[in-house]
């Protein structure tokens, strides 16, 4: 009983470390291992967590493995094309039944004693079943499945059967997901591959970063220097008309390049010189001038980062997925996107642009990683202290959708995420 009381207190203590009024959080939230354990339970086991995109499991029998917090799961598509998210744990003695990153299969077979499960998780066969006569029936031992729902091809799962439907949870973010998915250039958005890296720091450091425009010209100076002048001008957005909007439930959008919010607008504009090679390649593939304009405009992605609490961001042209490994270690996937059936020239360009900035060898990520590592390290200085997320707090306005909105380099989105975090960690009281 005393252990239960302790656990309850830790969730509440963490909630108290978020000072919404003043826009600051205790630095201990990055480094306290007990708080981390509570976050896995109170946050990751109690909300919708992104597990993949439908294009990663395109056919009956397709699967990919993923994690929800520290728990391994499998996203699979059964013969009737229904999606399942299954715990990757044999019901017999607990071994994982699938270690591949992705693939196609008819069944998941445990390597230990040969129990075989269908794509929907049902236990189909096991060696020498007669020894279980009168013990249990096969129908009682499927791989445990999670609640799963999708929006615009993005698949989310949750361990909590009582929370709101996914679309209610996404709420104000749905409008921005719809806009994000226009970057297929007229083709359905498809995953083209992914980069994977980790950094020695807490997951919330990454959560904050996706909605942090303030760091861009500083940390990414060397990336901007590598661009042509016209593109570099586009990335000089801190004095522009962009904004950060708190969309509720911890979600936020940071619009850096307002003219690239709707990729299907302004298609009558001439093709900029720097895209002429891509435009010509598309014409060479037989595309009409209208299609060429649409594809060229979509090729570089949207002008905004949409941060979805707690683990995925629709970040300009790709998905950024985070996974908390331990209090001081986080794994990140940068998932490259293109168009399903789109011209090769378009998808090739998308991959080359992704390689330029993203991933462990991109021109952007290593500098982000260095800054985050320093945050984790520096946060150990002093016995107590605050992390400030109060930038732009006194200059908020109300957006056309009725949400709090601040300047593009404000920390409005971080405050939104921490407000949701506080709410979820405080739920320990009700348990």
């Amino acid at each position, binding site marked *: 009983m005393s252990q239960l009381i302790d656990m309850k207190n830790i969730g509440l203590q963490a909630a108290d470390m978020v000072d919404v009024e003043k826009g600051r959080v205790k630095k201990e939230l990055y480094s306290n291992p007990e708080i981390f354990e509570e976050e896995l339970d109170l946050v990751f086991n109690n909300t919708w967590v992104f597990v993949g995109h439908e294009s990663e499991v395109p056919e009956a029998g397709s699967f990919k493995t993923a994690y929800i917090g520290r728990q391994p799961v499998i996203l699979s598509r059964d013969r009737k094309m229904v999606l399942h998210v299954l715990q990757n744990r044999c019901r017999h003695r607990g071994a994982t039944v699938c270690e591949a990153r992705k693939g196609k299969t008819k069944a998941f077979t445990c390597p230990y004693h040969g129990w075989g499960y269908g794509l929907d998780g049902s236990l189909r066969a096991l060696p020498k079943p007669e020894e279980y006569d009168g013990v249990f029936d096969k129908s009682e031992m499927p791989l445990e499945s999670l609640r799963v729902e999708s929006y615009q091809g993005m698949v989310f799962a949750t361990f909590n059967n009582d929370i709101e439907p996914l679309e209610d949870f996404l709420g104000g973010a749905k409008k921005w997901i719809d806009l994000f998915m226009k970057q297929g250039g007229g083709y359905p958005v498809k995953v083209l*591959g*992914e*980069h994977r890296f980790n950094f020695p720091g807490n997951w919330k450091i990454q959560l904050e970063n996706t909605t942090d425009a303030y760091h861009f010209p500083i940390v990414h100076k060397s990336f901007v220097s590598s661009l042509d002048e016209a593109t570099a001008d586009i990335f000089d957005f801190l004095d522009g008309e962009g904004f950060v909007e708190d969309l509720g439930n911890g979600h936020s959008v940071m619009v850096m390049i307002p003219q690239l919010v709707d990729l299907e607008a302004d298609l009558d504009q001439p093709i900029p010189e720097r895209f002429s090679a891509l435009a010509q390649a598309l014409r060479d593939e037989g595309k009409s001038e209208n299609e060429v304009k649409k594809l060229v405009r979509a090729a570089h992605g949207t002008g905004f980062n949409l941060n979805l609490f707690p683990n995925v961001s629709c970040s300009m042209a790709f998905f950024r997925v985070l996974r908390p490994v331990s209090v001081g270690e986080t794994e990140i996937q940068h998932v490259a996107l293109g168009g399903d059936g789109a011209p090769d020239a378009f998808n090739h360009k998308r*991959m080359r642009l992704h390689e330029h900035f993203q991933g*462990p*060898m991109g021109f952007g*990520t*290593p*500098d982000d*990683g260095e800054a985050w590592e320093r945050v984790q390290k520096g946060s150990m200085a002093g016995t107590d202290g605050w992390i400030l997320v109060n930038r732009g707090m006194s200059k908020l306005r109300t957006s056309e959708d009725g949400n709090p909105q601040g300047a593009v380099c404000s920390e409005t989105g971080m405050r939104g995420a921490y407000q949701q975090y506080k709410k979820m960690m405080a739920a320990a009281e009700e348990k």
Partner: protein
Amino acid sequence: MKSNTQLLAQVTEFIGYEADLLDHKAYQEWLSLWTDSGLYIVPTDLNETDYLNTLNLALDDADMRRMRVARLENGESVSAISVGSTVRMVSRVRILEAGDDLVIARCAMTLNELRHGKLVTYPANVEYTLKPTAEGLKLEQKVVKLLHADGFLRTVSFIF
């Protein structure tokens, strides 16, 4: 056509020279080792050979190589400034194809990086496509197949 021993010695010398340039951050000299059409590739999928049609960790043509070097040298990148030394060991050099126009070789490489006081190790198979020219061998393609290419890597602010 040289004897295999001569060619192996020449290729091994070239690979050792390139490794030494990179460990000592002589990036401008490294750039001069390439043909104009050369590609520096670090794949994510070790079974893939159609690199243009696949997402890689790096796929650098001449422009991207020049920009990558500029990023490492111009003092603007916080990760490049704080990167420690690298020491790479190269061995097991084998000639796979010895044509008059192109020589293809493969070797084992382990790169050790000291990063914020911690040792990080990258074992890899490296495949070289080399072009014999009047000025000696030039790099036509270099593919670095990291043993943990599909795992979660640390960020990289040097050249493999």
